[in-house]
């Protein structure tokens, strides 16, 4: 089962600064294991971030996003106590959603 994410959402003036850390191997499919066989690719393909019901970031990713991905950005219109949720889906269909409260 996918591990929980680490989400930070801090209101600073008018903008909410979001930082997301995700536990994911982001396997490229190009790496060989110790027996010389290619390790099958396993990576996040889609990631969406919503504040309450509003989409604040919508992204697609390839194999060259680093292991344990990190993402940081800012959006306007958030308030303290509001809910920010992050959802990802990877190429084998694993998915996970976590949420954090804006502080």
């Amino acid at each position, binding site marked *: 089962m996918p591990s929980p994410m680490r989400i930070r959402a801090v209101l600073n003036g008018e*903008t909410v600064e979001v930082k997301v850390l995700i536990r994911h191997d*982001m396997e*490229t499919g*190009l*790496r*060989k294991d110790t027996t010389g066989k290619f390790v099958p690719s396993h990576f996040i*393909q*889609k990631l*969406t971030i*919503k504040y*309450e*019901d*509003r*989409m*604040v*970031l*919508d*992204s*697609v*990713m*390839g*194999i*060259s*996003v*680093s*292991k344990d*991905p*990190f*993402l*940081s*950005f*800012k*959006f*306007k*219109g958030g308030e303290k106590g509001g809910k920010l949720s992050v*959802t990802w*889906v990877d190429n084998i269909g694993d998915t996970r*959603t976590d949420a954090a409260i804006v502080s």
Partner: protein
Amino acid sequence: MNQSRRDILRMTSIIGIGLAGSLFGSFNVFGAEWMPKSFEAKSLEDALKEIGVDKYSISTDVSVVSAEIAENGAVVPVSISSVIPKTDYMAILVDKNPSPLSAAFNIPEGTEASITTRVKMGGTSKVYAVVKADGKWFVASKEIKVTLGGCGG
């Protein structure tokens, strides 16, 4: 990439500005489609073509921020940003990687066109920020030297 996929991506951007919340929120549906052809493109030109970039201009209003030397190619911090009004799409491409397109973002209204993430780099390469604003494409790049390869082994 076929036309319909590209349209979906474009549509999402538009919807993202307007009514994303109620439409997508309640159904928990992803906005952007994963675009195999863009991600599998083996050269920068092909990747740009697949994303839908026809003409573009190099712009100082777009920036790629990172250190000039990455100690480890497996994890290279990259920030891309644009101060061009109506920026609604941004992508990171690593020229020398086996597949240059790394990640692409639809930027809804209210979200700053500035994103920080981390990418893998197979070796020293230019890293590109490709930005779409008001239907036009803009590009900036920065060379990052890698002292240890981040792909394969």
